[in-house]
């Protein structure tokens, strides 16, 4: 199993032990993983990567469990990467997301892996990106990333997921929480879980109102580019008749719009998008009610997630989003390499020296930074 080609071959074939072993290599940043990941690269980019994020206790794991069941019912192979926090003091962790998903443990079409953050901030572990790629190459059709319980700014999941499901629950705070920047801006599909509890109607309303106001204010949001592209395609194809000719995957196109258009069937309390009095129909993402415990609303949620994927593909936004994310990840990896070069013994001394002269007010901060940059430009310190 130590041979990279053999490990890659077995992981590609869906061998659970090989996949698991490889993920452990990723987690401990074993340099030997790189040869395997390079071999697997050609088989990545096929899975639909779905992020599930939201505050602690919102029911993300239970929801993930039910989403897995729904996707399995649709004949898809599903992997879940569930992230929980490590203790900043001992490094230990209790990874408990799996408790809710044990019914899938013996299903050959499901692979579940728990990751501890191991000091990484942002709601994911450092190993998440490479882990998702391994599962993608292993042939899982959907890869679900469940983030740690997030607060207000853990938004790394947007860099990895094609579709982000933002899970909220009643009773978290007043309506100002919904208009703060950060986590609430990153959803492609919104979901209010535990919708059988008091106050869920209010949360649904507040999220819709937040989204509608973002549109009215012309704010840049994660969903705006997609909705603009959909609107353009709608206009180009005449919005109705003849659309079949212009749009190859028309059912996906229509279903995405249908989700957003309020209909009589919703009876005014519909959770599929919404309208603002006097403004007509505004294009906002789906805001759905679920009760993960019983599975209520999960089918509609999965429909919305799949419609989002179809809309991304149809508009070309899937490629744009993935390219932007890879560019970001390349930048981040490069920054990591630069930091590693600063760790070099000779350079570390030089950095300390520069820091000293900044502290003694002999050099200013920015001259010191320029000097460091010149130093990194040379092969040797």
């Amino acid at each position: 199993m130590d041979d990279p080609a053999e490990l890659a071959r077995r992981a590609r074939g869906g061998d659970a032990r090989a996949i698991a072993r490889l993920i452990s290599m990723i987690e401990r940043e074993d340099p030997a993983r790189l040869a395997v990941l390079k071999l697997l690269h050609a088989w990545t980019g096929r899975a639909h990567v779905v992020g599930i994020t939201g505050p602690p206790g919102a029911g993300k794991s239970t929801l993930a469990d039910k989403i897995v069941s729904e996707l399995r019912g649709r004949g898809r192979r599903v992997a879940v990467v569930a992230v929980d926090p490590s203790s900043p003091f001992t490094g230990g962790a209790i990874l408990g997301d799996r408790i809710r998903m044990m019914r899938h443990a013996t299903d050959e079409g499901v692979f579940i892996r728990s990751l501890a953050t191991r000091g990484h901030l942002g709601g994911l572990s450092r190993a998440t990106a490479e882990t998702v790629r391994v599962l993608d190459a292993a042939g899982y059709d959907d890869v679900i990333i469940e983030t740690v319980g997030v607060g207000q700014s853990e938004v790394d999941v947007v860099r990895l997921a094609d579709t982000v499901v933002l899970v909220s629950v009643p009773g978290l705070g007043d309506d100002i929480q919904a208009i703060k920047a950060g986590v609430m801006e990153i959803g492609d599909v919104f979901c209010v879980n535990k919708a059988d509890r008091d106050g869920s109607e209010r949360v649904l309303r507040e999220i819709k109102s937040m989204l509608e106001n973002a549109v009215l204010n012309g704010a840049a949001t994660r969903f705006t580019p997609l909705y603009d592209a959909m609107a353009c395609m709608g206009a180009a194809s005449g919005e109705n008749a003849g659309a079949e000719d212009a749009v190859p995957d028309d059912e996906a196109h229509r279903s995405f719009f249908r989700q957003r258009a309020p209909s009589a069937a919703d009876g005014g309390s519909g959770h599929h998008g919404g309208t603002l009095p006097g403004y007509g129909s505004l294009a906002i993402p789906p805001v759905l009610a679920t009760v993960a415990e019983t599975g209520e609303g999960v089918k509609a949620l999965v429909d919305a997630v799949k419609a989002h994927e179809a809309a991304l593909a149809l508009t070309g936004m899937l490629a744009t989003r993935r390219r932007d994310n890879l560019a970001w990840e390349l930048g981040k990896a490069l920054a990591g390499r630069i930091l590693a070069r600063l760790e070099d013994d000779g350079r570390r001394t030089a950095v300390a020296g520069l820091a000293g002269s900044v502290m003694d007010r002999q050099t200013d901060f920015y001259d010191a930074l320029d000097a460091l940059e010149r130093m990194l430009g040379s092969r040797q310190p």
Partner: protein
Amino acid sequence: MDRTIRVLVAKPGLDGHDRGAKVIARALRDAGMEVIYTGLRQTPEQIVSAAIQEDADVIAMSILSGAHNHLFPRVMELLREKKVDDVLVLGGGVIPDDDIPGLKAAGIAEIFTPGSPTPAIIEFIKNNLKRKA
């Protein structure tokens, strides 16, 4: 860098008493280990499959229902079937002294009965891991 030890804590069998398992889980976490907690009423098949996917170094099982003589050896049998030979397997719970030799013969590395000090369990794990860094 030390390899982070991953322990799958599982409750096979039908009893609903998970206090002991949770105490162990917390102690192992505080010792710097990553504990994958799988909850109540797991079958040996679920435990082995989860341990493989999680690449666990250790499986720690607790039973208070009396079914240990059946369920513990069944886990070992499944591990052998899947050719997993590098996972340390521990048992705990209400287990009569007379049953312990048989369980060890079946491949359970150690049995910790009520009252076992958690530091002893942590030491045992650290000293008996089957995989080295």
